[in-house]
């Protein structure tokens, strides 16, 4: 275990004492959490425990009520300009794909590279093609999002995020909106990326994925990180009663 942790020494991102409230509803409480280069972190926990809110705070889609998000040790400032620069390094894949309906698959993957990363069209196209091929969507360059299945849309969304060449990729339940027969193709892509060393944080209900692919598992409960550790610790030797209860309930479903 110790060895395993040693491998990842460069901290990409950390959050310190992060809190988030919506009105009186305190959704995240004093979260400390960090991501090191090469880590694949799965976040598990019951619905409503604050997993999405944590990812959205990390990506600054929500403004934290308290605490800091540090990127390579520097606090991310909440001004439009700083946030925009930061987000281009931290990609996000959503449950509902969020592809641009007015663009074909290829353009979906090029637009951010061109407009945010300011690369020339040719380079943007090369990057888009590279990652579309990687996710197995190379044949669908000219399709529009509404012409694709859910699994295909999600693979395009992953290619779109990868084409930005982020340091870190966040996934918020990437397979939860998919028909069961499409979950496999998307998980397969994410697994492949994990094996290639991409740093990522995946909120998921796919326990097999969390157990087999992640280097670290974080269990969230009612706005706090209740327990974290290697998949072996969390799944086979959980310390917290709440972790045990959650896993029991989950496995018996």
């Amino acid at each position, binding site marked *: 275990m110790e060895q395993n942790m040693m491998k990842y020494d460069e901290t990409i991102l950390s959050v310190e004492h992060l809190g988030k409230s919506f009105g009186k509803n305190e959704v995240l409480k004093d979260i400390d959490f960090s991501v090191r280069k090469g880590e694949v972190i799965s976040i598990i926990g019951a619905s409503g425990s604050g997993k999405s809110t944590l990812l959205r705070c990390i*990506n600054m*889609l929500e*403004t934290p009520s308290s605490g800091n998000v540090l990127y390579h040790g520097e606090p991310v*400032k*909440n*001004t*439009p300009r*700083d*946030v*925009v*620069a*930061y*987000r*281009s390094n931290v*990609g*996000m894949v*959503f449950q*509902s*794909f*969020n*592809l*641009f*309906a*007015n663009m*074909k698959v*290829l353009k979906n993957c090029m*637009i*951010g590279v061109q*407009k*945010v*990363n300011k690369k020339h069209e040719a380079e943007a196209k090369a990057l888009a*093609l590279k990652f579309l*091929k990687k996710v197995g969507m*190379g*044949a*669908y*360059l*000219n*399709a*529009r999002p509404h*012409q694709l299945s859910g699994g295909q849309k999600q693979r395009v*969304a992953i290619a*779109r*995020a990868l084409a*930005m060449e982020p340091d870190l990729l966040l996934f918020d339940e990437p397979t939860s909106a998919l028909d069961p027969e499409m979950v496999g193709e998307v998980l397969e892509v994410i697994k492949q990326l994990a094996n290639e060393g991409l740093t990522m944080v995946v909120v998921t209900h796919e326990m097999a994925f969390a157990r087999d692919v992640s280097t670290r598992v974080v269990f969230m409960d009612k706005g706090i990180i209740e327990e974290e550790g290697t998949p072996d610790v969390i799944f086979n030797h959980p310390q917290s009663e709440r972790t045990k209860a959650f896993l029991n309930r989950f496995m018996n479903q």
Partner: protein
Amino acid sequence: MNGIPETFFGWVSLIFSEYGDMFIKGMWSTLFIAALGTIFGCVIGFLVGIIQSTPIESGSSLMLKGVIRLTKLMVSIYVEIFRGTPMMVQAMVIYYGSMQVFGWNIIPIYAGVLILSLNTGAYMAESVRGGIVSIDPGQTEGAKAMGMTHVQTMLYVILPQAFRNLIPQIGNGFVSAIKDTSVLNVISVTELYFMGRTACGTYFRYFEVFFIISMIYLILTFISSRLLILLEKKLDGESDYELIAEDEIGAV
């Protein structure tokens, strides 16, 4: 001249042979005002709609927040005024007001374009705002999450879709504008209705004259709405896409 006609159609053909050129000129004025008014009105409507749907981002400077608030207030006053008064009255106020207060003598047809543009803009603004908020917020999130600014998100993702969705309404607006220009006769714009009134002066054959005028309006609106349907079909584009073979992918 072959004497006084005895039938309705006799009058119609007499009046058309004498005033046809005038009616055609009036028709062109009507089309000119309706087309320019719709185009400028759309531009105004989009600007106002975009301003009204600009979020006040929490991290922005106080100065920027203040400017956005003030601009929003001003455009909502504009919308309120132009939606809350009849266009005929606006025409009088703007035309005679600018003459009396500023000493401007605006050529009536340009005054007409101005008034129709401001009017269309005020109505379009609300639809544009609706069109913007109706685009699935997930797409905005997707754009934001990859680092696009609000302006880029609008420009590349939201507005193209809002515009596409508003085309039917813009088209309907144009058809209405063709009819609404008739109220501009109060400031002596020589549009179709005004020409009709003028043509009544000689024979007092109101029915026959306005029968012709209404036929011309009908032809204009009928042709415009058919053209619009064609345009929409064209914009929808191919419903199919072609799969690209593995070895061709690089060459696209």
